[in-house]
């Protein structure tokens, strides 16, 4: 922390460790303003954190512009415009001289006339290496801190090395991961008797700060600087060249950094293409040179990746294992894919050993040829008897095309256990039951029924993230009796077990909420009933928010709807899970009919063309042309598919029946819901329950993985 008088007052924080952030978050609760001291990389990250904590945020930077280490004044000014648009106040060219405490409030004095009143202050400037250990051991430290090392990374005691952020290599500290790895390589070589030296490191950076792309690489000024500035769109680009304009020395990109990869790789050589293309519209399509760095975290070049591919690495996981590229931050994985394609490695689309086709191709085969059974499909177009990959996939395709109940005839044998028993298998072999609660809206009477059923069957109950209730611990032979009670009370299957529409979550909307502008519950219920039971390549989730406050979290869904004063905004391609992604805006201010028609087509096109277990986000990313392609197909009808997609959805809506009611009315299907075929009502003796927080839980004397 910089030696500012009053820096240790209550309400002053540093931005360094998880504990710091934890303390900051706690303190920010219920407070309204915050000031960040420092307008560099760390400071802007801190400003974003304060903004997300709901504080009115200001940034004070000593240098004349933001990010002085990476940007020039014009680039800094463009970044400032973009950040001020987010209602963050920016004060540059002024140093903080003192912090004064006045009760709960803090007063920040600066060298100029500026004095700011605030609830809390975050110091994100004057970061120093943690060299306490070196100081305690009487090792030499740098003038500005850090364990002083020579170019072999030896400290003043030749038997001790230092690497990474704590090391001051001939006085200079590097705060990035790539130089740390390069230092480690040098020390390894030295330990093995080699002569390697650390000759400085590439400190090029590309990041997204407060939603703005910022990159700098190489030298940020040369004999000849070519500059492009577009304040209307918040874009700034600068390329530094030699005086003959033939050699690229480095550059700065603000607002759009898509050309970063191609440009950084070209430093030291000619600009790879027309200058104007790089400056105005992002990355043109150029082939990277062989020595271009593909993975900057692990310093892997394109040639090394190509060599690994040549040695037989046939997919991304193999390339990762072989070269370590893509194993740290993962941002180069798309590049690895395109290098595989560039090297002519055909990424096999075969579903499994039984079919040489992708899911989309199988879907078309089944649809066009009118195939209605797995046996017909595998004997005509596949080999063997199928497996746990292709059978459920074909079952899903048959269901999407409307081939009756999922447990009819041969289809029953294709279903994964969840679809086979219309429930979700749990770790002890019991199942969970999830009745549909459209939009999360439920009457007291029905809530009571759920409670009574859970109590009478000894089930564990939990509220799900999709605004419904999960009943866990049902044995297979109990499922029909549980559902008889639920169906009698008006419930139907929630399809929690299917790769199908799950829920359409909602906030209370304009009916109750003083901020709501549309009836989000009404729309959510209508959408959930429209798409219930729709089988798809993966689960589909949705939500409707009644105003821009977005309480239903619609942007984390495959399709999410947010109410506006004029109608609805539609967002597509979001998900939570392993790789969370916000949905992208697809339509603005449309009426309900347009909205529903577009969602119909979106879902049907997804069902027809996506891969197995591919969520909508990855599907859209994989479409040639992405969101624009999707808009061309389902809004502008460029492929002439819309009438067909509309008709397919109309058939789905018209043919819906409740899967569980159908089972209860069919003695043949009901016969499968037994514990033992020769002792139908004897419970599985291996299943038993303990109790936790007043509810039954599986007793896993099972010894998992034993």
């Amino acid at each position, binding site marked *: 922390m910089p030696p500012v008088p009053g820096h240790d007052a209550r309400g002053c924080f540093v931005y360094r460790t998880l504990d710091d952030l934890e303390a900051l978050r706690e303190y920010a609760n219920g407070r309204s303003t915050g000031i960040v001291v420092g307008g560099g990389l760390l400071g802007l990250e801190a400003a974003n954190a304060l903004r997300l904590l709901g504080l009115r945020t200001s940034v004070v930077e000593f240098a004349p512009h933001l990010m002085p280490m990476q940007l020039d004044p014009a680039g800094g000014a463009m970044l400032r415009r973009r950040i001020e648009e987010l209602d963050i106040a920016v004060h540059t060219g002024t140093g903080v001289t003192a912090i004064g405490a006045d009760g709960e409030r803090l007063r920040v004095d600066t060298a100029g006339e500026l004095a700011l009143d605030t609830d809390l202050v975050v110091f994100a400037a004057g970061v120093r290496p943690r060299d306490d250990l070196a100081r305690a051991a009487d090792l030499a430290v740098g003038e500005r801190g850090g364990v002083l090392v020579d170019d072999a990374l030896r400290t003043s005691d030749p038997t001790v090395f230092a690497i990474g952020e704590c090391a001051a290599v001939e006085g200079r500290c590097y705060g990035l991961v790539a130089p740390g790895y390069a230092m480690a390589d040098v020390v390894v070589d030295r330990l093995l008797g080699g002569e390697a030296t650390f000759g400085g490191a590439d400190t090029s950076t590309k990041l997204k700060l407060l939603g703005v792309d910022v990159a700098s690489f190489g030298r940020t000024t040369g004999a000849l600087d070519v500059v492009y500035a577009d304040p209307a769109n918040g874009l700034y680009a600068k390329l530094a060249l030699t005086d003959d304009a033939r050699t690229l020395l480095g550059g700065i990109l603000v607002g759009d950094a898509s050309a970063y990869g191609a440009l950084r790789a070209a430093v030291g050589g000619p600009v790879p293409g027309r200058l104007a293309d790089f400056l105005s519209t992002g990355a043109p399509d150029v082939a990277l040179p062989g020595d271009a760095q593909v993975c900057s975290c692990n310093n892997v070049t394109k040639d090394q990746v190509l060599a690994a591919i040549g040695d037989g690495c046939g997919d991304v996981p193999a390339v990762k294992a072989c070269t370590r590229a893509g194993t740290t931050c993962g941002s180069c994985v798309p590049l690895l894919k395109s290098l595989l394609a560039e090297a002519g490695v055909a990424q096999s689309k075969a579903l499994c050993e039984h079919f040489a086709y992708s899911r989309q191709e199988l879907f078309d085969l089944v649809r066009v040829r009118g195939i209605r059974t797995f046996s017909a499909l595998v004997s005509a177009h596949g080999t063997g008897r199928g497996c746990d990959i*292709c059978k459920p996939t074909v079952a899903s395709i048959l269901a999407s095309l409307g081939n009756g109940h999922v447990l009819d005839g041969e289809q029953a044998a294709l279903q994964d256990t969840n679809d*086979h028993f219309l429930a979700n298998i749990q770790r002890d072999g019991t199942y969970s039951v999830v009745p549909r609660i459209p939009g999360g809206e439920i009457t007291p009477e029905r809530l009571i029924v759920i409670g009574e059923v859970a109590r009478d069957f000894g089930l564990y109950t939990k509220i799900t993230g999709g605004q419904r209730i999960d009943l866990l611990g049902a044995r297979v032979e109990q499922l029909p009796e549980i559902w008889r009670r639920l169906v009698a009370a008006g419930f139907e299957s929630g399809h929690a077990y299917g790769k199908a529409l799950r829920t359409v979550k909602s906030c209370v909307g304009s009916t109750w909420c003083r901020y709501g502008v549309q009836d989000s519950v009404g729309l959510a219920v209508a959408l959930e009933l429209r798409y219930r039971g729709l089988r798809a390549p993966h689960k589909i989730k949705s939500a409707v928010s009644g105003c821009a406050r977005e309480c239903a979290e619609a942007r984390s869904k495959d399709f999410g709807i947010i109410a506006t004063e004029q109608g609805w905004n539609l967002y597509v391609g979001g998900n939570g899970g392993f790789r969370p992604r916000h949905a992208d805006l697809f339509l603005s201010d449309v009426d309900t009919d347009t909205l529903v028609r577009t969602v119909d087509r979106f879902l049907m096109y997804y069902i027809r063309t996506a891969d197995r277990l591919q969520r909508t986000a990855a599907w859209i990313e994989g479409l040639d042309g992405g969101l624009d392609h999707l808009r061309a197909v389902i809004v502008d009808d460029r492929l002439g598919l819309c009438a067909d997609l509309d008709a397919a959805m109309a058939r789905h809506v018209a043919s819906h029946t409740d899967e569980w009611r159908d089972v209860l009315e069919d003695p043949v299907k009901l016969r499968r819901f037994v514990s033992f*075929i020769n002792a139908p009502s004897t419970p599985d003796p291996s299943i038993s329950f303990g109790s936790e927080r007043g509810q039954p839980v599986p007793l*896993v004397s099972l010894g998992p993985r034993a």
Partner: protein
Amino acid sequence: MTWTPVCRFTDLLAERGVAALIGDAQVAVFRLHDDRVRAIGNRDPVSGAHVLSRGVVGSRGDRPVVASPMHKQAYDLDTGECLDADARVPVFPVRVRGGVVEVGTA
């Protein structure tokens, strides 16, 4: 060898299994696509749950297999060998006599 009748052959769905209780033993009985029958232990040795009868039946190469519904490891229905993990399940003799499926136990 004791042969225990467990169900009629026609109770079995092609390429699907059922569970049977023989004394204390849980047995998973399968009917293959060509109407052969196979029986293995119902306990999935990887998860410890008695669920193998509820897996998807198919083939791996020439071997008839069932995939555990828990974590999808495939088990050879002829030998009980797990093809995806170091595990094995017991195999039971099984036959069809007069339309009735019988499982043999020692």
